[in-house]
């Protein structure tokens, strides 16, 4: 079990590093394209003239943003969903704190910092750069509507994301999707409101032509980058959910716990108010309305951050079938 997580952790560290590199390079490429479009850096008679100010600025911006999101991404995410620290102010909150400690022990991880969102829709997510700096956030709806066993299943799922460093990858993706959307927006404004003027004109037709081509490439890149980053976030997220569901069962030793929680959520219609496109992939179930349905098929899959709930439930039911045959020793799970 533990070695399993170590392998996943290594993969996640590598993937995160690659993602950040790709992110910084994309910014650099767009900056360079803008330099060509603005003619402050250009090809004159086959020679590069000028200094690519915008490329350097874009690289610096992307680098700084990556660092900031690595060290304070969790706080940014918590801020954007209006979360506050979870304290033992009510009996039910105290119980959630207990369950988080239980799952941390089961996962052999330091206990994550607990947070709460005041939202009636049951949901939860985990984030942070590593297990020692991780947070688990639950909604008030989850606390109110679920019993001890169900909450244990949900927290076990989140703890699995913590243990295998999914939280780091997903957190960086959350910030990057936002950064790319912003950059793309910026490029468009700049291009259409003053970017095309050009401060220096070149007499050479061929240079002009290549400048136009580069400008076109920038426009296309800026147009597809947000879409691709979204698709990437969704693809990366989907494959992790089944795994976290399975690990949750490993931690709780009780397939019924998460199964009941997911069945409960499947019946609920109300979407999370705080859920945004940028953070959707962090949650245990998709917080946005209409995206939780059980449409299957390639395009429905492509555009969803989570696998269909019915599929996740079916897999857990299969686990429950084998578990009851071999009788997994379950921990004391008193219903509250």
């Amino acid at each position, binding site marked *: *079990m*533990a*070695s399993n997580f170590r392998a996943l952790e290594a993969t996640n560290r590598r993937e995160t590093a690659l993602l950040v590199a790709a992110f910084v390079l994309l910014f650099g490429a767009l900056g360079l394209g803008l330099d060509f479009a603005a003619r402050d850096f250009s090809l004159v008679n086959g020679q590069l003239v000028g200094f690519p100010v915008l490329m350097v600025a874009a690289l610096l911006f992307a680098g700084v943003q990556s660092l900031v999101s690595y060290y304070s991404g969790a706080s940014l995410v918590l801020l954007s969903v209006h979360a506050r620290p979870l304290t033992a102010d009510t*009996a039910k909150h*105290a*119980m959630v704190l*207990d*369950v988080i*400690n*239980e*799952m941390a*022990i*089961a996962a*052999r991880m330091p206990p994550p910092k607990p947070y709460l969102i005041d939202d009636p829709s049951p949901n939860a997510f985990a984030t942070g750069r590593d297990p020692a700096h991780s947070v688990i956030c639950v909604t008030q709806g989850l606390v109110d509507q679920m019993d*001890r066993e169900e909450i244990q299943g949900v927290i076990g799922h989140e703890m699995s994301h913590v243990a295998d460093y999914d939280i780091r990858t997903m957190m960086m993706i959350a910030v990057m999707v936002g950064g790319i959307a912003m950059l793309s927006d910026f490029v468009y404004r700049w291009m259409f409101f003053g970017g095309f003027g050009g401060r220096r004109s070149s007499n050479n037709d061929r240079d002009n032509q290549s400048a136009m081509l580069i400008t076109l490439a920038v426009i296309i890149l800026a147009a597809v980058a947000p879409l691709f980053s979204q698709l990437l976030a969704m693809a990366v997220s989907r494959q992790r959910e089944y795994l976290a569901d399975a690990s949750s069962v490993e*931690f709780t*030793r009780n397939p019924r716990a998460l199964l009941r929680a997911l069945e409960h959520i499947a019946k609920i219609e109300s979407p999370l108010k705080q859920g945004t496109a940028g953070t959707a992939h962090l949650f245990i179930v998709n917080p946005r309305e209409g995206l939780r349905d059980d449409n299957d098929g390639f395009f429905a899959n492509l555009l969803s951050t989570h696998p269909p709930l019915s599929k996740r439930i079916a897999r857990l039911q299969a686990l429950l079938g084998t578990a009851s045959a071999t009788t997994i*020793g379950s*921990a*004391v*799970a*008193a219903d*509250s």
Partner: protein
Amino acid sequence: MVILIILVAIVAWVVFAYNRLVSLRNQVDNAWRQIDVQLKRRHDLIPNLVEAVKGYMQFERDTLTQVVEARAKAVSAPDQASRMAAENQITAGLGKLLAVMENYPQLKADENVLKLQEELTTTENQLAFARQAYNDVVLELNTRIQTFPSNIIANNFGFHPADYFKGAPEEQAVPKVDLSMTTPRA
């Protein structure tokens, strides 16, 4: 030159294997401390719980007495084996108590009892998970000590396989104490 490279590689491997064994041994010790913390917490909780519920549960005297006696035995146990036997008895008794408490609706209205019940439930759960975590690292350590080639390092530097924490009364149909249990590392 080639011999030198091979020598360096061997030394590097020895250092790595040794450090890995030390790290695992520390993890085993740490996991055991986690169990100990929960056992102590449980000892502190039992008198409070008994005090809070005995007024309601006149018919469950036997269960209450069993838990209290097992606790006394655990606290004054002369050695690790008898302590663990007593702890397993507590686990069995508390499991029964927590189940029986469901039959007393008056208890559900007592805020103090509910709070104690939650604290006991989480202590029992944390104990169960801590025991599992402990056994997981023991398995890892013992495998490394017993398999080739890391067993060479383990034998030369005096690493001993750790004992598993056995005896899980709640997993048996009829709760009874497993007296054949071996002593876990202290």
